[in-house]
Each structure stands twice: as C-alpha cells, then as structure tokens.
C-alpha cells in the first residue's frame, strides 16, 4: 500500500508503544530503590508516553494505512520479529493504552502506602507491555511472547498480596461444594489462573505448530499472502483442528467455557489489577486473537474452505459462556465477583459475534459488532471496577452485604457507577453498551445461520439477566439501610467519605465516555463498520455485500437498525432492570424470602451459587484425582518396586556377592597360585584353540 504523506508515521512509533512499558518495568526497580514515589511517576509517565505513541498512529489507521516493520530475530530458522499496525491493531492499541493509563493513574491513589508498591508498578508495566506486544506483533510466535507475558503478569499480580492474609482471600470461609473448600488465597488463585490459561496456551501453541509445519511462517501477512498451506492442511483434515486449537488459546485467556473458572479467583488481586485484566489486558487478549485471525479465516471461508465447524464452535462457546456466567452474577454477594462474572459473560457476547460473522458470510457485521462491544465494554467495565475499588477502599469489605445506603456518602461514585452500569445494561440510545449489544443482536438475528434463533434467544436472555444483576449490584451497594458493618465503622469513628480525586477522576472520565460516545453511538458504530469494511476489503479481499453508508452522507436516526433486535434489546433492558428495581431498589419483595418460597427457585439458586458445580468438578478431576493416583504410584511403585525392589535388591546382591568373593580371599598363597596357574593355562588353551 502506498504510504500516505502527512499522516503516515514510521514503524518506530509502533515499536515504541510496546517497548516503552517494558523499559518502564526495567527501570522501576532501580528508581524504586531511591524513591517509591518516583517509581510511580515513572509508571505514569511511560504509560502516558506509550498511549501517546499509540495515538500518533490513529490518523494513518483512519486512512487505512498499515505499518509493517520487520527485523531479523531467530535467523537460524528464518523467523523475523516485527510490528504490524493495521487499523485493527491501532484501535486496540489505543483502547489498551489509554485505559491502562487511566488505571495507572487510579493506582497511584488506590495503592498508596503499600510497602510492595515497586513490585506492583513493575508488574503493571510488564502487563501493559505484554498486552501491547500481543496487539502489535506481526507474527504468532512473537505474539506468544506477549501472550505468556500477560499470563505471567496475571500470576504475579493476582498473587500480589502473597502473604495470604484472610482479608485478601475470595469466597466465603468454610463454604464447601462437593466436599471441597471454595475459599481461595491469593497465591492459590495466581497459580490457578496461570495453569488454567496455560492449558489454553498449549492448545494455541499446537495450533501454531500445525500452521507453521505447513506454511513455514508465523507471520499474519505471510499467511494471508499465500494460502497454499491451507489447501494442504485441508487435504490432511487438519485445517479445522488447527483453527480450533488456536481458538483454544483465546478460550483460556478470555476465560470462556470450559476454561472459565480461574476468572473468579483472579479477584484476589488489587482492584486496579482486576480493572486492567478485565478491561484492557488479559481477557481482551483472547478476543483480540480471534479478531486478529478471524479475517484470515473469513477469507479462507470465502475462498471455499470448509470452516463452518470452527465458527460454530466459537459462536457456541461464546453463547454458553455468556449465559453461564451471567446467571452466576445474579447470586453472588462479593462485588468484584459480580463484575468478574459479568466480564466473562460480556466476552462471551463478543465471541458469539465473531463466530456468527464467519457463519453468516456477512463478515463485517459480526466483526464490527464484536469489536465495537470490546471497546465499549473496556470503557464501562474499567470504570465499574475502579468504582468498586473505591468502595472496597472506603468500606474495607468485599461483600455487598457489608455496604448499603452509600449513595449519600459517595455521590460521585454513585453517579459514575450508574452511568457505567447503564452501559453494561445497555440502556437504550444513550450508552455505548446499548449500540454495541444491539449490533450483536442484529448480527446474530440476520446471520441466516441455522443456529441464529437459539443463539439470539440466549443473547436476549443474557441481556435480561445482565440488566438484573447490574441493578441488583447498585441497589445493594447504594440503596436501602446501612449495613451493620458500616454502622460499626461509623461508631468507631471512621468517617465514610468519597474516594480521593486521583481515584474518582479516571473512572469518572470513562463513565462520561460511556454516555458521551453512547449519545453518538450509531455514528461511532457506522464509522467503525466503514473502517473495517475497507480493512477487510483491502487487506483480506473480502468484499461486503452492502456498504451501509456512503462517506459524507448524514445518517438518519436509527437507519440500519434491525427492528427485532431493537425490540428485544429494549424488552431485555426493561424486564431485567424492572425486576432488579422491584427486589433491590424499591425493595418491594425480599429476595431471600422469594428464593426460599418454592423448591424450584431454591434449588436453582443453590446450583448457581455453587457455580453450577463446575469449579468443584474441575478440582476433582484435575487436582484431587491426579494427586491421588500420583500418591499411589509414589507409594507402591517408586518406593516399593523401584527403590526397595531394584535399588535395594541390587545393593543386597552386591553385598551378598561381596561376601562370596570374600571367601575366596583366604590369604593362603598356595591356593592363589593354583588359581593363577589355572588362569594362565586357560588363556593359553584359549589362544591355541
């Protein structure tokens, strides 16, 4: 593509975006020795610099300009390292960069006074750098460095409070499901996250290997340039497995079913980490992987390769996750956990959209919808998490039952949480969440796939539940009477007050953006769609059947909106929000009494509260049972057969034979001479024969 003068920036900017956070991580320990405060400033400054570099690439991206810059890396195998800043990567890099920057600013307030703060800054910057590396790499292998980097950073940050104090645990102490405790320490949670995502990672690695074995390259553009590899893979029946294996990485990282259980325990980390994991890094990495590779597979599907199974898997995994996690969000009492469930559920929406895009052959609809939802979710979820962090900071408890009636004391947080919460619920016409969710509904409904109706039904049901749990959360925290915990705090002289400015400003900005962009949501969506239409057409040669709007035309209100999707969206918001209002804001009905009123609700509530028993089953199958087997092998094979049997047996045999040999050492010279003579005779005879 012709470089466009004036708006084109060099590859250096793209490199700088991901290298700067790593530079920060490198110098922070040294700076931190001198001054902990200075280490914080380094983090803020370089996070800002990285985001600014990302911003310099926007004009080029809007003009569909692509930066692709390579250097030699593992030359003995012919692998190059490079950055690839196409419109997709540039938008993502900006979302990641700016939201991370706000979270870093927020952390200066939230983590104030923590004695391990240098370590915190190191890992935060490492986290951001790894994520930007994922976004900007031009090949799978280099991307995998970032991919594992975010895994490592999440391990370190989830287990940040490694001293495992009781207040840093998640879950309710003593709660048992299927005989196993569901109460986890930070270090346990870190390991759980690292290992569960690693399961996804090795699937992704296998997929990468399969493709590399046929294509001989890891490069995204190289793979697109010549698709002979796909032909030979299809001939061996390996194309769909390879694609699904690659998607396995996304399942692990984005906490999709069945690798979703780590996400909850990830809440043991500091709240700013949760915000980073949920809004900008980590779980978004999985969606980005699908968005990065999706067009390649769209193009292959358009060229006649049979990839329907692959897209069906993506769509269904997304749908199942969306519903499964949304239901659990309804019953939990820990505020961060509710938000965590919500993230998994919303990511499910994105996956569903990306999957349905491949099934519908109208790629750009689903693709735009999924990615738009990623952006809007990043904004409102980061805002919600940071606000939740403020609540934790002020109240000193992770349980919503320890809050209540806070709306008079924390007016700003209250307002911002409503704004961001409305985004999550998809409040009609004024929030980004509405437009992006509506786009997903429309993409699913119009896809014409055989799964369109069931997927659509799941999507709408999830939306109802989402609206319900959001209102429930806000109701439990801000409405009703003060909890005993709060009364106790006030009695002890704690004044309940708003969080400091460094904290509320970041989430205020994001909450305002949720509404601000929401008002012009349709225009924003059309803009992204237009950009992606061009992107898919130019880079992947995927022509869309209709281009919704011509450039320069004014868009009539609600043009291009599917009425069924719109109706469903409005209904979901009203029903879910209304139910939430009845139970938790108006408090006309006591939810506890309601649940206990009949056996069906009671048992459903119990199943959901026990996480559909999935977590316990994962532990039984992959922790308890293997350990039991290994213990058996250790006791009865290693210790008994090998150690006692072979090792000691040999030792005894040697000892015994030594005794036999000892007997020959009589000390009588004559008998030695006899043996000596016999030996000579034997050798001589042997030589003659």
């Amino acid at each position, binding site marked *: 593509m012709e470089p466009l003068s004036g708006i084109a920036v060099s590859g250096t900017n793209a490199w700088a975006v991901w290298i700067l956070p790593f530079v920060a991580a490198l110098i922070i320990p040294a700076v931190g020795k001198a001054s902990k405060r200075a280490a914080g400033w380094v983090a803020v400054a370089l996070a800002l610099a990285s985001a600014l570099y990302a911003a310099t690439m926007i004009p080029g991206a809007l003009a569909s300009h692509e930066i692709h810059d390579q250097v030699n890396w*593992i030359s003995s195998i012919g692998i190059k390292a490079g950055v690839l800043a196409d419109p997709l990567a540039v938008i993502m890099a900006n979302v990641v960069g700016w939201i991370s920057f706000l979270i870093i600013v927020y952390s200066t307030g939230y983590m104030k006074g923590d004695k391990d703060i240098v370590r915190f800054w190191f890992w935060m910057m490492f986290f951001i750098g790894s994520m930007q590396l994922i976004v900007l790499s031009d090949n799978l292998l280099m991307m995998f460095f970032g991919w594992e980097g975010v895994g490592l950073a999440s391990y370190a940050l989830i287990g940040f409070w*490694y001293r495992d104090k009781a207040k840093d645990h998640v879950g309710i102490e003593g709660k048992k499901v299927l005989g196993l405790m569901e109460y986890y*320490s930070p*270090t346990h949670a870190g390991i759980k996250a690292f290992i569960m995502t*690693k399961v996804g990672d*090795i699937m992704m690695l*296998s997929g990468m290997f399969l493709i590399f*074995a046929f294509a001989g390259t890891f490069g995204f553009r190289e793979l697109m340039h010549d698709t002979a590899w796909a032909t030979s893979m299809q001939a*061996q029946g390996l194309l769909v497995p390879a694609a699904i294996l690659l998607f396995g990485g996304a399942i692990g990282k984005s906490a999709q079913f069945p690798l979703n259980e780590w996400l909850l325990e990830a809440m043991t980390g500091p709240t700013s980490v949760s915000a980073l994991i949920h809004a900008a890094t980590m779980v978004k990495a999985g969606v980005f992987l699908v968005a990065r590779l999706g067009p390649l597979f769209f193009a292959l599907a358009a060229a006649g390769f049979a990839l329907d199974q692959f897209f069906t898997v993506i769509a269904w995994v997304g749908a199942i996750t969306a519903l499964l996690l949304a239901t659990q969000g309804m019953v939990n009492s820990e505020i961060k956990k509710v938000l965590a469930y919500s993230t998994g559920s919303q990511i499910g929406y994105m996956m569903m959209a990306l999957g349905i895009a491949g099934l519908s052959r109208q790629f750009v609809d689903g693709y735009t919808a999924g990615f738009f939802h990623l952006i809007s979710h990043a904004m409102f979820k980061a805002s919600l998490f940071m606000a939740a962090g403020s609540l934790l900071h002020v109240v000193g408890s992770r349980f919503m039952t320890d809050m209540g009636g806070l709306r008079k004391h924390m007016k700003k947080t209250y307002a911002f949480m409503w704004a961001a919460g409305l985004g999550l619920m998809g409040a009609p016409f004024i929030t980004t969440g509405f437009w992006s969710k509506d786009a997903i509904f429309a993409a699913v409904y119009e896809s014409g796939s055989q799964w369109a109706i069931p997927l659509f039904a799941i999507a709408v049901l999830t939306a109802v539940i989402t609206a319900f749990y959001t209102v429930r959360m806000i109701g439990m925290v801000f409405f009703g009477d003060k909890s005993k915990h709060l009364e106790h705090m006030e009695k002890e002289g704690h004044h309940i007050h708003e969080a400091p400015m460094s904290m509320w400003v970041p989430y205020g900005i994001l909450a305002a953006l949720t509404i601000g962009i929401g008002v012009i949501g349709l225009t924003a969506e059309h803009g992204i769609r237009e950009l992606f239409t061009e992107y898919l057409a130019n880079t992947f040669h995927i022509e869309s059947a209709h281009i919704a709007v011509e450039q320069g035309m004014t868009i009539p209100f609600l043009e291009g909106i599917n009425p069924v999707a719109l109706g469903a969206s409005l209904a979901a918001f009203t029903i879910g929000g209304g139910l939430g209002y009845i139970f938790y804001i108006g408090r006309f009905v006591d939810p506890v009494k309601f649940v206990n009123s009949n056996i069906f609700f009671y048992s459903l509530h119990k199943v959901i509260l026990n996480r559909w028993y999935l977590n316990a089953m994962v532990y039984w199958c992959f922790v308890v049972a293997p350990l039991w087997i290994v213990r058996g092998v250790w006791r009865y094979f290693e210790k008994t057969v090998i150690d006692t049997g072979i090792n000691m047996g040999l030792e005894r045999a040697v000892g015994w034979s030594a005794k036999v040999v000892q007997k020959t050492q009589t000390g009588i010279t004559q008998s030695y001479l006899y043996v000596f003579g016999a030996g000579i005779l034997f050798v001589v005879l042997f030589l003659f024969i």
Partner: protein
Amino acid sequence: MEFALLQAVFLPLLLAPVAYVIGRKFGPTAATWFTFGLLLYCTFLIIDVALSGHYEEHYTWTKLFGEFGFKLDGLAIPFAVIIYVLSAILALYSQPYMIHKFKEFYEEHAHSHSSESGTGQSTALVESTALTTYVNNKSGLYFALYLVFAMGMLGTVLATNLIEFYIFFEIMLIPAFFLVAFWGDGPRRRISLMFFFWTHAGAVVLLLGFLTIGLNVGSFDFTAIQESKIPSNVVMLAAVAIVIGLGVKLAAFIFHIWLPYVHGAAPTPISALLSPAMIGIGAYGIFRLIVEFLPGQYAEMALWLHIWGLATMIYGGAMALMQDDLKRLLAYSSVSQMGYILFGIGSYSTLGLAGAEMMYVTHGLGKALLFMTAGILIVQVGSRSISKLGGLAGKMPITAVCGVIGALTIIGVPPTSGFMGEWTLFYGALETAIKDHATTGSIVRMVTFGLGLVATVLTMSYMLWMLKRVFFGKLPENLSHVKEASWYMTAPMMVLAGFTIVVGIYPDIFFNNIIPYMKGVLGA
C-alpha cells in the same frame, strides 16, 4: 589460539594440586577466587575458539586406541560453554556454602570427640584456630576435586575418540563420588556408593558397546567410525548398549532411582553441577554416538527413545509432586527434564533435535538457579523441608526473584530460554508426526505429542506449587530472623538469571551453532 582446548581441559587437572595448597595455606576465599579465575580463563578460551564455529585439535596417543583429540563443533559448543560457565560461577557460590558445611562437620566432629574424651576444656582461641585449620584443609581438598570434576565433564564433550570419551566419562565420576562421600547430607557414604555403582554399571554397559563398535571398525576414532560400515546385526546391539549405558547417566525412567538420592545428598554447589551439567552429558553421548554416527540405528530407535522420553517426563514430574525435601523435588524435576531431552532426541526432526540440545542449555541455567536457591535456604534458613518454609519472598527478595526466574525457565515461559528450548522441541515432535502421516507411527507420535504437552502442565504444577510453599504464603514465626544471603551466593544467581533471559530473547547465540549441525546430521 593454539592448544586452547588442551589448556581448557588439562589446566584445571594440573592446577588442582595448586588449588589444594592454596586452600591449605590461604584459606577458602583464596582457593575460591583461584578456582573461579582459572575456570573463567578456560571458559574464555572455549568461547574464543567457539566463535569460529568449528575447531579441532589433535595429538598423538597410543597406537592401540588411535588419536587423542578435541573437537568443538555445533554440537559440542553449547555443552562445553554451559559446563564451564556453570562450573566457574558455582565456584564462587561454593565459598559461603562450603564454609557453612565445613563448620557443621567440624562441630559434629568436635562434639563427638569431646563427648568421648569428656574434657572439653580447650579455650576459645585454640578452638577457633583449630576450626580455621580444619576449614582451610577441607576447602583445599574441595576445590581440587571440584576442578577435576569440571575438567572431566568438559573432556567428555570434547573427546574425538571412544576410549578418550570413556576415560573422561569415568574421570568425572571419581571426584563426584568423593565430593558426595565427604560432604554430603544424610547417609552420604551409602549414597555415594550407590551413585558410583549405578553410574559405573552404566559406564560398563557403555564400554561394551564401545568395544563392539571399535573392534568391528578397527579403530576407536570418531572420524573412522563415521566413515565405516559396520555389520548391521552387531551394530544394533552396540547401539542399544550405548543407549542403555547413557540412559543410566541420564537417569531415564527405571534407571532414575540413584539420582534423587545423590542429588539430594550432594553438597548443593555439586548438585547444581551434577544435575544439569553432568547427567545431560548422557544426552550429548546419544547425540554424538547414536544420532550422528549410527543414523540407521537412530532411525529405527527414534520412536522408542521418544516414548521412553515421554515416560520419563511424566513420571519424573509426577514424583516431583510428592516430595517434601526441596532438593529431592529438584532432582525428580531433573529426571523429568532429561525426559524432555530424550523426547526431543526421539523426535527425528531438525528442530526437535535442536530443541533437545537447547533444553540442555536452558535446564543447565534454570536448574542451577533452583539448586542455588535451595542452597541458600540451607545456609540462611537451615531447612530444606518445604513444609517448614513459607513466605520467604519478603525476607530474601533477590533469592526469590532468581529462584522464580529459574522455575520459569524450567516451566518454559517466555522470555526465559526455556521457551526457546520447549517450542522447538515440541514443534519438532509434531512435524515428524505430520510428515509421515500415512504410517501408524504418526498416530503414536500425535498421541505422544499431546501427552508431552500435558507433561508441561505437570511441570508447571509442581514448580509453582513449590514456589508457593517456599516463598509465598504465611511466614512461619521461627523464620522471622532470616536474612538475604551473601553476595557470593546472590551475584552468581543474578548473572545466570540474566543469561537465561538473554538467551530466551536472542536464542541465536546457541541456535546458530546447533541448527546447522542438526541439519547436517539429519541430511536435511
């Protein structure tokens, strides 16, 4: 440089008595720096000639065996560099550790002595001079043996002749035996005998294979073996004997039982050399003798080596989960890692073989780091039982960081070198499975590939669990006084930790040598 390799191999042997004298006269610190300086000089000699890529030296020897030579090629360079880098660095690390150990032995000795005589009236001054003399004498002996051990390992990977190989192979065993027998933990005499017995038995089987080949070819020189055609019925037997002999050294499944005992009991700097550097020489032997010299037999055996490797990987990892003694856990982990190497050797592809050799490098760095961590815990905390540790990250941050980097190297997380070893290794395994997709072997290889990946999760589990129990969680009350170790111990660790990250980001340092060699061997 002339005689570079001859110097690198024999200077440590010739100067071992000097180290002994220095130790006796001037004490452990002088002996440490002497040993370190000497090994560092030799390391530079190796690196200097290694930069040319291929380098050989030949000397005349007895006619009976052939030529006495040293060869540094793509295969030997990573082995040689890692062996001497580790030896040099661990010499420094030995100083505080061995002084600690000698003092312990002295107290034990003096205690039993005084309780026998029942007097114990010696003044503190006499006591302290006696202690100094004791420590000086012992450290002289330690560093002398240490030097011989290092040169034995280097000689093995540079040898160009079967008999030469065998001699060096046995030379490294002798000092290792004494080091364990003199300063090991627990029932050290029995364990050192067990060590000697197992590895020597392996070496004898190896020798049988060597003799079979040598007598059939009529020469023991590598060059002669490479060019000759050996009758196929005999050579398979020889190949099996060699693999079994080296398998004992590698501590592959079934032959592994000596390793946890020995590596658990050996003085920690020696464990850190034994575990990654010495047992991996078994892998070097398989590369050189089987993969390079007997390609026909290698092709037949590859799948079996692959499966044997897989069994070792999983078994070692599973047993590591069950350990409470930190050093034994690491020893079982070494068994598992040797399984990775065998797995890679069995992959029968360029990248798989390259990955297997890279695993030697990365395991060398990672496991050395972890053993050094264990050593620091022994010196600073006084315990190696995992259940008695916990929460130490805040008390000894440098150790904790380096230990975690070591663990990540073993797990294979980028940007440590472990990832570079692992991805090439597993890619190689998969590549072969795909390439001959028409045969049944490919299905087996697909399955082994999948199970191999499961083994990486196992590795991750035992490592992270170990880290959690040692460094994280609640600090036991009796450990609140623990302090960070001295620079002699932490600085070497930081060097290794930095090195593993450099190799992880820029693997060409080793791949540039390894990959052309492996391509040549497989004729690809």
